[in-house]
């Protein structure tokens, strides 16, 4: 065997040896993810549909509901954590205006998870992207990586947190899709509930994977877009009428 041939075979052998443990690790990681009737269900993909044609300009019911539900600052300062915000957009050439809430888009390929050095930023089996505050070191790489500006940093010590929503200084946080509600069988988020109660019905929350769900039916019937679809992050939040 020539020297070059030998090196080629050796490289292939090493490559194979490296691949096999990698595959095993992935299998172990998948097996470790709790599945079954309780907890995050991998068959589910939670998502939201935001109908901007129904979203009233200047209305902040969803933002208020989010702040109340999660114990955020009711009167936010510029440095307060912000999980959902209202944006007003205008097509300059035509003058057409639209209003929409923007929050964590719960990407299928979340860049915040890619950049997190500690594994604190993670995606649950049911597609919800969260921060594990026990592992978060507050480096804010995820804040930089997120193209939707969905993550906030808690700068000051907090008190009187909600029992269901622990929050604290030095950690990054963002929309949790009201995970504490969903895990206990509640079928809607605080923002979607407030929007429906106010009579707008601009936010639909549900399982995108369930063909019978309202959200799946609506996204099947009407044209919807993902924000910055060019980034191919496959967000779970879709917008109609942008």
């Amino acid at each position, binding site marked *: 065997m020539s020297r070059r041939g030998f090196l080629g075979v050796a490289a292939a052998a090493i490559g194979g040896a490296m691949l096999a443990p990698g595959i095993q690790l992935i299998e172990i990681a998948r097996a470790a993810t*709790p599945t079954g009737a309780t907890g995050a269900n991998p068959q589910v993909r939670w998502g939201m549909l935001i109908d901007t044609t129904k979203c009233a300009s200047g209305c902040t019911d969803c933002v208020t509901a989010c702040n109340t539900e999660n114990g955020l600052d009711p009167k936010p300062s510029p440095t307060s954590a912000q999980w959902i915000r209202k944006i007003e957009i205008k097509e300059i050439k035509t003058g057409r205006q639209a209003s929409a809430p923007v929050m964590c888009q719960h990407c299928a390929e979340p860049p915040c998870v890619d950049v997190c050095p500690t594994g604190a930023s993670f995606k649950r*089996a049911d597609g919800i992207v969260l921060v594990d505050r026990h592992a978060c070191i507050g480096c804010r790489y995820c804040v930089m990586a997120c193209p939707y500006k969905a993550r906030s940093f808690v700068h000051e010590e907090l008190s009187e947190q909600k029992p269901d929503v622990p929050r604290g200084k030095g950690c990054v946080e963002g929309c949790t899709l009201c995970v504490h509600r969903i895990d206990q069988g509640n079928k809607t988020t605080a923002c979607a509930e407030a929007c429906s109660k106010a009579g707008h019905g601009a936010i639909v929350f549900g399982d995108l994977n369930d063909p019978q769900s309202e959200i799946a039916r609506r996204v099947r019937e009407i044209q919807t877009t993902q924000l910055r679809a060019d980034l191919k992050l496959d967000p779970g939040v879709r917008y109609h009428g942008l």
Partner: protein
Amino acid sequence: MWRVLCSLVLALCAASAFAADESGRTPKPVIERALAGKTCVADAAFMRREHMNLLKHQRDDTVHGGIRGANAKYSLKECIECHASQKTASVAKAETNFCVSCHSYAAVKIDCFECHTSKPRALAQGVTK
């Protein structure tokens, strides 16, 4: 003579240690009674030794796996529900409260309550339900 002196000193030391213990000069953690009429998820001796491991496993199952409510056996929230003080409505506010009394005795600083509320659901501020 030397042997007698040694034994005398030893006896005195033992006596003083015993006296200190008897008179209660050694501080002991004050364990406040939990809410009456309920039993803990495991017996007290096991919980005293293992609660930190149980809570650590539970937190990973809850945060990553979404195991909450009735399925979360060792939930910190449920600990607080029963063990919050009747006076301060907290497990960590005063020195005598359930979590702090032992941890200050053992000189263990816990940071659970920098993020988690130390009050039970009914008494935590801002709960509108």
